[in-house]
């Protein structure tokens, strides 16, 4: 550790940085608070789940989602949260299972998936998902048949992914909000079936 940084407990070091940013005119306390307020109130896997449920109900929406993720997110009101990167939706089928990783860091569409899980940021997931995806999925309790192809998408800051899970049984007869409640954050990352 470099001496300058190592001496202060981390919370004090962060507060010190905040003070210096404020002094330099690069931030205000109000702005920092507002950013956090917005994250806590708007970023949620419920948003991604709504996009999935809509895709299951509406083939036209599914096609638009696969063609242009950003436009499809905006259609449901999530345009602001998905600006600044390309959103690509990848669709699971009985033959192909998709999963997302960010080997470099933790890139991920937070507005649609909510807080990225600790495991998504872990060294183990980041290093192993690209080398042995099947073994990693098994650790999540997801055992896929050998005949299922696994596609691993390595996100970066410019391109981020959303998995469109396998359509739930009986989706035609089920209310969209009920369908959305079947979709989990892990399903949207590809470490669960839904």
């Amino acid at each position, binding site marked *: 550790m470099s001496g300058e940084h190592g001496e202060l407990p981390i919370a004090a070091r962060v507060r010190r940085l905040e003070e210096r940013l404020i002094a330099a005119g690069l931030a205000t306390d109000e702005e920092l608070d507002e950013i956090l307020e917005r994250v806590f109130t708007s970023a949620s896997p419920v948003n991604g789940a709504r996009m999935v449920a809509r895709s299951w109900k509406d083939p036209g929406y599914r096609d638009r989602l696969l063609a242009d993720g950003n436009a499809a997110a905006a259609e449901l009101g999530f345009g602001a949260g998905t600006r600044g990167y390309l959103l690509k939706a990848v669709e699971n089928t009985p033959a192909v299972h998709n999963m997302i990783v960010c080997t*470099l860091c933790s890139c991920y569409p937070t507005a649609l998936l909510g807080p990225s899980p600790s495991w998504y940021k872990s060294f183990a997931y980041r290093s192993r998902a690209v080398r042995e995806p099947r073994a990693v999925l098994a650790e999540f309790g997801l055992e896929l048949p050998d005949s299922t192809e696994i596609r691993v998408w390595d996100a970066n800051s410019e391109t981020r992914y959303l998995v469109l899970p396998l359509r739930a049984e009986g989706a035609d007869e089920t209310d969209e909000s009920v369908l959305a409640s079947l979709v989990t954050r892990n399903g949207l990352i590809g470490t669960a079936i839904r």
Partner: protein
Amino acid sequence: MGGQTGFGPVPVEDDGQFFHADWEARVYAIVRVLQRRGVINAAFDDLRDAIERIPPAEYLTMSYYERWLRAAEMLLAERKLLADD
């Protein structure tokens, strides 16, 4: 980290929380505000680049938001955007 070995099983449990300490939330907000000011670009590349420039021996001992903090400090120092203490 892609393809490296030796990190053991994936810690699959998660509590669905954004942050696990107040300082982590503050680091997140600092990075976002720097993005807003154009100090960090919209796509995040320069923060990621700075994270990658943390020496590996330190990188591996730091928590996630500690790496963000260090990277933000590096960028601010390199661009001489803060007054000296």
